[in-house]
């Protein structure tokens, strides 16, 4: 399938894949169930009449799962809302190890198959034909490199093989390694067929604007966009909680903390790149005031509340900030650093 993908670190392939016309770019981050924020934000932007046809949409993990709906236009807002407010954990995974992960994602595979319809893929193909681009990022674990999938090109190929690949890429982009099993994608190289192991695109970064070398602070690259809109499906402030002395709990809090640090760095890079490209920088993230309780992963009540927060922000006078959120101070409950000596 020609032009289906390229390495995320290939500057030439990235430049070649870009739209012929400049326009606003929408960047959708990782975030799991917190993708309800981004889904709500985009729906709010639609309601406010502030949502353009983005020239480029990129998505990683949950950002990948929402990206096709957003790319295809506001007529898919209702479907997007349903996915992020009516879905529960039972629709995403089944408890129980697979040998490759702690959980099995056959429910998510079925959900994707139900939601990513041939009609939606055809609309994405048409948008691609008009010059717009939809990029989804996965991680090729064998190669240890991120891959950018040109979803419009895949959609334009048409047929069952393209539909299957389209859905597999979305599943792979959201397959958190360890928690979810990897997704194997059949490829062919020099006449040889083999299966590549792909996992969550967030392994290579929480969102994607351009190849890392182009985004480096030493780069003179000019982003070929009118403006950059980054939707961070996460809060950026520390989330204090006493961590249980179990392996999963320790891993979970460690990864969550590392991801917030990664988001901060990526946002900072994107801001600098936007400034020296002379384009607008816009970012929206979950406000620190959002404190709804969650009864576990993909709690529909939590997701409904977060969708509303996003919607209200999208429908407000200022949906985006024009610079990265300030670094927070310590949580209000902690006024000084505890000193060694006390038992946990």
């Amino acid at each position, binding site marked *: 399938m020609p032009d289906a993908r390229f390495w995320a670190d290939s500057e030439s392939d990235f430049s070649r894949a870009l739209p012929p016309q400049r326009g606003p770019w929408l960047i959708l981050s990782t975030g*799991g169930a917190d993708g309800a924020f981004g889904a709500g934000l985009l729906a709010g932007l639609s309601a406010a009449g502030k949502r353009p046809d983005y020239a480029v949409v990129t998505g990683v993990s949950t950002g990948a799962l929402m990206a096709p709906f957003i790319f295809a236009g506001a007529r898919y807002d209702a479907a997007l809302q349903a996915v992020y407010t009516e879905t*529960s*954990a039972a629709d995403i995974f089944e*408890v129980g*190890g697979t040998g490759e992960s702690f959980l099995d994602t056959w429910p998510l595979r079925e959900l994707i198959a139900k939601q990513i319809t041939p009609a939606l893929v055809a609309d994405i193909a048409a948008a691609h034909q008009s010059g717009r681009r939809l990029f989804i990022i996965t991680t090729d674990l064998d190669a240890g490199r991120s891959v950018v999938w040109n979803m419009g090109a895949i959609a334009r190929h048409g047929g069952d093989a393209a539909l299957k690949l389209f859905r597999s890429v979305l599943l792979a982009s959201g397959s958190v390694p360890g928690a979810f099993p990897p997704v194997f994608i059949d490829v062919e190289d020099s006449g040889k067929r083999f299966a590549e192991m792909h996992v969550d695109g967030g392994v290579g970064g929480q969102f994607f604007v351009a190849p890392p070398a182009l985004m480096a602070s030493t780069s003179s690259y000019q982003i070929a966009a009118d403006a950059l809109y980054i939707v961070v499906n996460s809060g950026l402030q520390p989330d204090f909680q006493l961590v249980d002395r179990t392996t*999963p709990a320790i891993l979970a809090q460690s990864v969550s903390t590392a991801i917030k640090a990664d988001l901060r760095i990526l946002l900072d890079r994107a801001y600098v790149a936007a400034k020296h490209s002379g384009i607008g920088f816009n970012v929206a993230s979950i406000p620190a005031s959002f404190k709804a309780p969650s009864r576990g992963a993909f709690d529909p009540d939590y997701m409904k509340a977060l969708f509303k927060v996003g919607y209200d922000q999208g429908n407000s006078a200022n949906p985006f900030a024009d610079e990265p959120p300030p670094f927070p101070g310590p949580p209000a409950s902690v006024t000084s650093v505890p000193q060694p000596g006390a038992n946990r």
Partner: protein
Amino acid sequence: MSKLVSKFGLVTVIAIGGLVVALSAAPSQAAQKRAAHSRAYDGLWSVSIYTLYGPCAAYRYPARIVGGRVVQAVNDFSYQISGAVAASGATAVTVASGGQYAVGYGRLRGASGAGRWSAAGNLCSGTWSAIRRAAAN
């Protein structure tokens, strides 16, 4: 990626806390004996849990029915599932973890089923639904 991983911690927390899923109340010995003779529902099942009351997380769990008895479907030692299915489809299952347990009531019909569940101490309660994903070998 982030939230799923972080929330995944709760899966284990919940499982270890014992606020796990149940298909039905623990059956009587007689019911289990009767159920052991029914193979109509044998196979691999997937049970979705919905919490209507309380702070418990709700997830989907696999279960295998063999000779009318409900047993573990996967080698996941964070929870233990046991119970039985009568020829009528009435089910009785207990799920235990970390010294705590949850129970429920319900009925299977053909390749699906539904019922109610509650955790020990009535901390949480809700409904469940089940589908058969594969018949017995």
